[in-house]
């Protein structure tokens, strides 16, 4: 494999493009300079840090350190899930649900692929485990947050229908089934759309990266297919767990709809 290495100095010229965006913002009074500057600095700092952290992890090849890194990734993902909810579940519940479901789904699928097909040595080798987890996590997170959002919004909107079903002696699962179906559909839709459009509309990032690193395109395609299958599985699993968990949190043992447990709509 051969690839063209970059020095930090090689990034100066491309970075001028961001400066150009800033100049545009000033000239057109878009008032984006501040946000743009913060985002650029964050991106540079975060990526460089991740680069050093990964270098350390790849040198260490320790189960403990890899697991710790994975847990931190899951925590950031669950924070992102909560931030995307229009109506939130209170405090610990939503954090626990988000983190639990992402960990369950992304973790299961990542370990599944490591143990069955990729089989690096050792199986938890961070060079394989962390990039895989990261890609699956990102997509699972989207599925879970969309699914939960659709569930709570659907229940608030269809409250009369759900309560009619409950009042007529329906169980909470019977009453919530239409809302659960809608939530699952919203959670899975981005993955299905991505699979349908992939290669035609967009060349996926990982495949592009491998090709730039000198991998034969057809080998890169095989890796990408593996990732997409894992993403589809992780999103399905994670969304199902999150939506069922959400349904349980929003009802109680006496089969009542408990919308009082949803925090009020975010005002912003």
């Amino acid at each position, binding site marked *: 494999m051969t690839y063209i290495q970059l020095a930090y100095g090689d990034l100066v010229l491309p970075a001028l493009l961001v400066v150009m965006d800033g100049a545009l913002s000033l000239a057109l009074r878009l008032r984006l300079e501040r946000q743009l500057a913060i985002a650029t600095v964050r991106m540079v700092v975060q990526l460089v840090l991740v680069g050093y952290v990964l270098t350390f992890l790849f040198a260490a090849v320790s189960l403990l350190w890899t697991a710790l890194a994975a847990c931190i990734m899951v925590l950031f993902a669950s924070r992102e899930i909560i931030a995307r909810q229009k109506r939130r579940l209170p405090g610990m519940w939503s954090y626990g649900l988000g983190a639990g479901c992402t960990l369950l789904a992304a973790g299961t699928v990542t370990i599944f692929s490591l143990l069955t097909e990729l089989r690096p040595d050792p199986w938890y080798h961070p060079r394989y485990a962390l990039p895989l987890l990261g890609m699956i996590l990102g997509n699972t997170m989207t599925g879970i947050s969309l699914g939960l959002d659709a569930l709570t919004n659907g229940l608030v909107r269809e409250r009369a*229908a759900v309560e009619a079903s409950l009042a007529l002696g329906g169980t909470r699962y019977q009453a919530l089934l239409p809302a659960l179906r809608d939530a699952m559909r919203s959670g899975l839709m981005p993955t299905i759309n991505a699979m349908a459009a992939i290669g035609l509309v967009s060349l996926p990032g990982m495949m592009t990266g491998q090709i730039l690193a000198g991998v034969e395109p057809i080998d890169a395609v095989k890796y990408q297919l593996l990732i997409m299958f894992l993403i589809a599985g992780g999103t399905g699993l994670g969304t199902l767990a999150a939506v069922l968990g959400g349904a349980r949190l929003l009802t109680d043992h006496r089969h009542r709809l408990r919308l009082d447990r949803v925090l009020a709509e975010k005002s912003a």
Partner: protein
Amino acid sequence: MLTVRALRRLHISVSFDLQDGECVALQGPSGVGKTLLLRSIADLDPNEGTVTLDGTLREAMPAPAWRKRVTYLAAEPGWWSDIVQDHFSGWDDALPLVTRLGLPSSCGPWPVQRLSTGESQRLALVRALMLRSRVLLLDEPTSALDSASTAAVESLIAERIANGTSVVWSTHDSAQASRVASRIFVMSADGRIGDSRP
């Protein structure tokens, strides 16, 4: 017999007995808590108190089983499917009641969206009546109906009462209250009910 002892929900605190085949009208200004009371008896909201049917505590049975016996009919009907007849386990069995309330027998395959407020209210009543519950908790069941439809509903419920069903009937119409009920509960702002006979 339905007995309600020290039922509490927010500001409401209520005790009463309801005999088999008895109809009680529930009256009081808007916002006083009539709907809250009916929903609490059906155990649709968290509440405290002892509610029994023929001596059996509602907590002794699963909530869905309780609500099939003690059924709450909301003032605004909810529909969980797009088609009218999907809401009935046996549409053909419901047809006699549907036509009796002045609805066309062809309304089964209609989309719910097409129903007028009054049609929707009558169909929701039929849907609840199909359960043959022991106790009906009716929340303004004729609020959207003309006088002919109201009379049809009142006579249908009167038949059920004669057959032993107990009814709590929330209404703003005092004339209706004295027509349908043998007792009237008047709810006051402090969340208690006063008993009077028409």
